[in-house]
């Protein structure tokens, strides 16, 4: 199932969160060889995690972390603006109706390609559902190039603004329109789309508890 978790509520989901930050280390440091910081707990956390982002987390039936992503508004600090503006012609993207998605990952513990695809699709749909709920018009993200094939196979190909790097380290910056049409297309691929839509509607319920 999909869970939307605000930064200030992370401590309510200790297992999911522990696995999320560890899986991020495995994904971004070990697999993609990005130069990221991993702390003494084995957690990959960066300078954006303390800025109050919204996490989308896929929880598997056994309660483990299946995958996750992180949403932030582009009117504040963003990874694409601070580290990857060479992929966007030097433009620092900033608009109240454009959000950034970062640290998108599927847990390396997910063995079957089928399940990995399901988790990816569910997370993307959850991002679109949350965006629509709040009136977001576009998402921007930086991703490694092989993901482009995955997005294409899901009929969810972004417009690529720019790309850089060679081989396994090649990365792209993309934009996706956040529309009902995209939502419906993705929802057809996810059996639990109603659970995701309901979670997006209920989104801030745990706030200020």
């Amino acid at each position, binding site marked *: 199932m999909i869970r939307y978790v*605000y*930064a*200030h509520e992370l401590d309510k989901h200790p297992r999911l969160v522990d696995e999320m930050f560890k899986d991020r280390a495995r994904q971004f440091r070990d697999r993609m060889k990005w130069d990221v910081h991993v702390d003494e707990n084995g957690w990959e956390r960066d300078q954006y995690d303390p800025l*109050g*982002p*919204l996490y989308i987390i896929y929880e598997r039936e056994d309660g483990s972390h299946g995958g996750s992503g992180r949403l*932030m*508004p*582009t*009117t*504040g600090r963003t990874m694409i603006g601070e580290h990857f*503006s060479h992929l*966007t*012609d*030097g*433009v*620092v*993207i*900033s*608009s*109240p*109706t*454009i959000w950034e998605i970062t640290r998108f990952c599927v847990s390396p513990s997910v063995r079957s390609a089928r399940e990995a695809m399901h988790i990816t699709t569910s997370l993307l749909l959850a991002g679109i559902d*949350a965006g*629509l*709920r*709040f*009136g*977001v*018009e*576009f998402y*921007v993200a930086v991703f490694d190039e092989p993901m482009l094939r995955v997005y294409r196979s899901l009929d969810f190909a972004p*417009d690529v*603004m720019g790309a850089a790097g060679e081989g396994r380290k090649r990365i792209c910056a993309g*934009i996706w*329109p956040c529309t009902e049409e995209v939502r419906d297309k993705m929802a057809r691929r996810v059996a639990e789309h109603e659970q995701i839509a309901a979670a997006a*509607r*209920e*989104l*801030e*319920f*745990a*706030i*200020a*508890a």
Partner: protein
Amino acid sequence: MSERIRAIIERLPEFRTVEDVRRFADLIRDVYDVDHVVYVVMSFGGDPGQGAYEFGEITYRAEWSQRYLEENYKEVDPTVIGAVQSFTPLDWKRLDWSPRKRRNLILEAVDAGVGNQGYTVPIRGPNGQFAVLTINKTCTDAVWERYLAETATDWLLVANFMHQKVLEIFSVDEEKGLPALSPRERDALAMISSGMSRSQIAESLKISENTLRVYLDSARNKLGGLNMPHAVSIAVRTGIINI
């Protein structure tokens, strides 16, 4: 762009003074057919506010605003606590009103003429700037749900316009000088100002139309432009582009 947003943008240039912020709030109330509009700056940046509001315009009855301040309700109010915790807008209906103090607060507020449905949009700027725009409206859950679905994008924009307007009136951004635009943003703005169509511009810059839209929107936002013509006029006036 919605008709309502257009109606807001057309009137924005006439708001120039601190007193005009109230007229802006009234305009939002009328155009969007809501009961009340609240815009509060918690912090203009730098010093993190010390818990006092730095500036606010509120269409509530004065007695209610007074009572809210005297009772220090912001310590109890989940819309305020929520806005501090999250960057996403807050639908009041989705907040936790179960604690007794919060229940009493909303009952008392509705008694004082505050709408039973509300939406609070947090606004964050560089250097710790933090403000919120809140609207509320008396209606059923079903009407409210449709209303929000229709206006969600508008609220992101209106909140941002209000905030930029107030920064402009208080000259908060002045010492920062001109915003840094990349050569690409300047090219795109100059092409727009020359009357080229978006598809022509996208083609000549060899980027997709969505990419162009994101670049132009970023340039508009950084310039404090309300729409593209306004952004272009600011860019021309400040010498960012030459035509």
